[in-house]
Structure formats: C-alpha cells, structure tokens
C-alpha cells in the first residue's frame, strides 16, 4: 500500500543556517511517526514543509499520492495540523471556534461531537480565555481533528502542559489512531515518543541520525540496561583520572548532572568491576543504580549529549 506521506531529500536553508539537510521520511497508514530531537534540530521546519507552510529548497513531497506543490488545496481537506504555540481567539467560545474551523473544510465532524471527543462538553459555551492550559490545548486538538484527517501533524503537542493534561492528550491521540490514519509527531519528550510512536526518527542538526521502532532503537544502540553511578565528593573528571587505567569501558560513559551513565550489555559484570576498582582506589560510591534504557540513552549514545542540554 502506498504511504500516506512520502518526503524525499528535503533541504531548507535560512541564510547561512542549514535547518534541514537531506531528510527523507514516510508515514504509512495506521502508523505514528515521531521526529525526536532537541530544539533547533530542524523538526519544525521539516513539518512546516510537509504542511506546505514553508517551501523546501529542494526535495519532493507527496501526500495521499499527490504532489503537495500542485494539489495542496485538496490535500489539506484531509490533513489536520497542530502548530507550536498557537493562540486561538480568546474571546470565542469553544463551540464558536470549532464552527469557524469546521467551515474551512468541505466535510467535517459535527461540532458537538468534536467537543465531546476531547471531553470539553461542559465547557462548550465557555470562552477560550476561561479555559486552563490543558483545556485550551484540547480545544486546539479538536480544531485539528474536526475534518477527521487521514494525516495529522502534531508539532510539540504537549509542550508546557502539566503531566495530567499531557496524559489526556496522549489518550485522545491513541483513540484517534486507526487503520487508515497516520500521525506525524515532533517532540523532544522521550516519554511522549515512546508512548505514541510506532516509529521514531531521531533528528539532530537537520539530519535523521537513526530510525526505527522505540524498542528497535534501544536494542540496536543501547542494549537493555543503563548503569548510573556517582562518587562522593569527587568531580567526574577526577574519577576518570583515577579509574581509567582499571576500567577501560569508563571512557564510553557519559556524564549527566555529575553522574556517570553507561549503556551496558552486561550490567552485572560492569557493576562487579566497578565496585572492585572503587575499593582498590579507596573511592566511596555515593550512588549506584541500574535502569532500563530509554530513547534518551539512544540520543546520548548517538550525539554524546543529553537532549535537554542540546
């Protein structure tokens, strides 16, 4: 079956800055693809090119089998969009806002049904200025779902929301997913990508540096476990000096907030060696723990830095 969206060799420069440098992606029906990467990686520029808001310097975009350049108007009838940081008219009620958005499309859901879908029925006649941040974002989501889009673009849909509101948006998106529908999501939240995405493309400096399902990525790049440890009263650099000779794998550990993190295929072996070396050098471990690898670790492994620091 033909993918809902294919984009090949997209490039976009702003002056001297190369925002997107040869990105190729596709979204299949029934799948959610997440572009995961730090701020400034080129995610938003990529999505805006796919939405037809930015013109790529080069590359080809096809949605529903049609070229975006020539058939944008008809393609947009079946596309839903959630941009970053959009403020709807605060003086309109939820119902009025959705009536406005519904009017843009040839076919749309009933406004009341869309409101019920995002669980805002009791706020139907409230002005947007009276809603909380999470409710506002749900109203915005309803605007993006009003035409029952076959392809939904979400650019950082839960940035700035409290955990409960984020969970609610995630649940709504889970419900929206379906056999013939596709979602393209950008996020810098690992948990969001892991929760929603069937496939993740890790983006850094305008390129895709890894792609696969979350578990595939973790398997391929990290193994299952991460060992984290920290020493009492000793800077990481000093620790490296003292222990490097005894623990050859230490050079692969990265330092996050003064604590070493090491992706370990055989964590038990690592921990044994670590405590033996610490005893010999008379160093006192302040913390030693083992946790499951996440996409964050994949990102660290691939770029050498944390996604939040990038």
């Amino acid at each position, binding site marked *: 079956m033909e993918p809902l969206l294919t984009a090949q060799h997209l490039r976009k420069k702003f002056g001297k800055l190369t925002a997107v440098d040869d990105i190729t992606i596709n979204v299949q029906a029934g799948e959610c693809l997440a572009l995961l990467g730090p701020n400034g990686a080129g995610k938003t520029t990529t999505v805006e090119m796919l939405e037809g808001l930015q013109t790529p310097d080069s590359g080809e975009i096809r949605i529903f089998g049609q070229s975006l350049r020539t058939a944008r108007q008809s393609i*947009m*009838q079946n596309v839903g969009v959630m*941009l970053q940081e*959009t403020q709807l*008219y605060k003086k309109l009620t939820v119902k*009025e806002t959705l009536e406005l958005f519904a009017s843009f499309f040839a076919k749309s859901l009933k406004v009341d049904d869309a409101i019920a879908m995002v669980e805002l029925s009791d706020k139907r006649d409230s002005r947007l200025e009276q809603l909380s941040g999470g409710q506002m974002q749900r109203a915005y989501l309803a605007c993006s779902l009003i035409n029952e889009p076959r392809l939904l673009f979400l650019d950082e849909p839960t940035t700035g929301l409290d955990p409960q509101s984020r969970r609610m948006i995630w649940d709504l998106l889970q419900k929206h997913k379906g056999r013939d529908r596709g979602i393209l999501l950008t996020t810098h939240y690992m948990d969001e990508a892991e929760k929603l995405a069937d496939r993740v493309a890790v983006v850094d400096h305008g390129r895709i540096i890894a792609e696969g399902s979350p578990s595939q990525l973790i398997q391929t790049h990290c193994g299952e476990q991460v060992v984290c440890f920290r020493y009492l009263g000793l800077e990481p650099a000093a620790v490296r000096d003292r222990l490097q000779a005894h623990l050859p794998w230490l050079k692969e550990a990265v330092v996050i907030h003064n604590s070493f993190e090491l992706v370990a295929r055989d964590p038990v072996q690592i921990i044994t060696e670590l405590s033996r070396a610490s005893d010999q050098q008379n160093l006192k471990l302040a913390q030693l723990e083992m946790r499951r690898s996440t996409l964050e670790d994949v990102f660290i492994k691939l770029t050498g830095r944390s996604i939040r620091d990038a």
Partner: protein
Amino acid sequence: MLSRSLWQQTKCRWREFRREPSAFFWVMFMPVLWMVVLGFAFSKPRPESYGVGWLAPEAPSALSEKTHKALAENPQIKLQEASLSELETRIKRGEISMILQFDPQNKAIYRLDQNNPEAMRARNFVNDVVQNEGGRLDPVPQESANIQAEGGRYVDFLIPGLLGLSIMTSSLFGVGMTIVSNRKENLLKRYLATPMRAYEFIVSHMFGRLIILVAEFSAVMIAGYLIFRFRLYGNFLHYFLFAILGAAAFTALALLCASRTRSVPMISGLTNLISLPMMMLSGVFFSKNNFPDWLREGTAYLPLTALNDGLRKIALEGLPIQALGPEVIVLVLYTVVAALIAQRLFKWF
C-alpha cells in the same frame, strides 16, 4: 456567494469587536463624548471680549474721564488699571492684549503687538469706543441683522469631522492590531494550514469593518440628532456611501501597515504615526482656513482631509456624491494603491 467559511469569519470579526470592551467603547462612545464636550463648549458663541490696560493720563481731561467710564462699562471689555511696567507684564501673561493712554493733547496712544490679530481686533474695538466718545458721526447709516445659516453651527461642522476621525481610528487600529496579534500568535499560520481561501480572510476583515462602520455611523448620527438636532442637508445614502469609501481607504492602509509587522507595539506606533498628523491637520475639530496656503494645499491629499471635506460637503452643503470629484479620487487611489501593495507584501507568518 457568501460561503460558509466567509460567513463564519465575518461573525468572528464581529465577536472580536463586540467582546473587546475597550474597542467597543472607543468606537461607539468616544466620538459621542467628543461631540458632547466640544459641542456644548462652543455651542453659544459669546461675543469676543478684550483685555485692555488703562494707563492713567498725566493730565486727566473730560474726554479721558468719559472714555474711561464708557470702556469700564462695556461688557466686552475687561479694563485693568496699573503702572506701565505692570501692564506690560500682563500683556506677556495674555491677560490683556493692549494698553491705552491719553496724552496731554488728548491723543489716544495705543500700545500693542501689531502682528497679533487679537490685539489688532481689540485696538479697533477700543478705537471705535474712543472715537464715539469723542463725538464721531458715521456718514453712512447702518444696521446688522442676525441670520443663522442652515448647518452653520460649530457642532454641525464638528459632527462629520468626528465621524471621519472615528472611521480612521477604528479602521487603522481595529484591522491592524487584530492582524498583527494573530500573526504573532501563529493563528494566521494555522489558517494557512487549512483549505481556507486567503481572500476570504481579507474579505472577512472588510465585511467586519462594514458592520462596525454601521455601528459607529449610527452612534454618531443618533447622538448628533438627539443632543444637537443635527441633520443632513444632503442625501443620507450618499453620506453613508462616502463613509464606506473612507472606511475602505483606511482599511487598505491598515492592511498595508500590518502586512509584515510582527510586534504589537510596532503596529501601534506605526498607526499613531499615521493617524496623529491627520488628526491635527485634516480639520477634524477646526476649519483649515487659518492654515497657510501651502499647508492647506499639502494636506488636501491626506485621506482624512478628503473624507472630512467630502462628508461635510454632503452633510452641510447638500452636495451629491458625484459632485465630490477630488475627494472621491483621493480615497479611491488610497484604497487601490494601498491594497495592491499590501497584497504584494502580506506575510502570513
């Protein structure tokens, strides 16, 4: 013709306006407030009164005594007696505009700034009194009769000017601010990511203006009639059509100002930059007849001048719209040129 989307967007424009209390107040009540304050302040033109300094003559005579009494009793003269230096200070303060003294030969000496029109009027008025007391007899008998020209009151002049002012400010600020803040908040971009047709967005702003114009037009007309019995001598429809033309010109200018701006303080400054000079130079509150010729001719091409002049010609002189050649041409040119440039420059985000 009126698509569902255009209808929804036009409704949205009206709601934005109606639910923004400051915008609503500004548009609906400010012109009425101006009308009431200025209309009442200037509605009963009292005869001009003159501050006159009386410098006591060195040798008082029967004539100087008689004249002093006549001046002191004249209701249009505020006579002040003091020393020369004190009187000169009062001239500087603007309390009096001239000084009169009789010399020993009974010659009336006037001291005044002859470049000051008010001082010259005072001198002439006082001189008439002096000459009459001296026994002047006018060779030609004369009599003045009072006529009240239709639509000749100050408030009749003021009301069309206030309508013009209101159309200018509400169009410039209303359209400009809305578009700029929508752009800043990514809403224009969000619209662009739908099948919405771009022209519908612009047309909805024009329709929105039209609705608001009806509101402000009615407010000014109804208040003008109820408070001052203001009525049109020209055709109502022509008056309204010309107001629409004015709103179109200022809406186009607002679209031009807002075509790329992303910051609200920037658009607000830009709008003030355009509207303030016109507020002062386009004869909103007072006739431009006292301007020097070059200024009057230069400001004739400002859109607010054209709008005000045209509204007054219809309202006060009863001219039909087709008799307003230059005013119509100026407004149409502003509308078309500004709209074309705005269309070229306009950025959605």
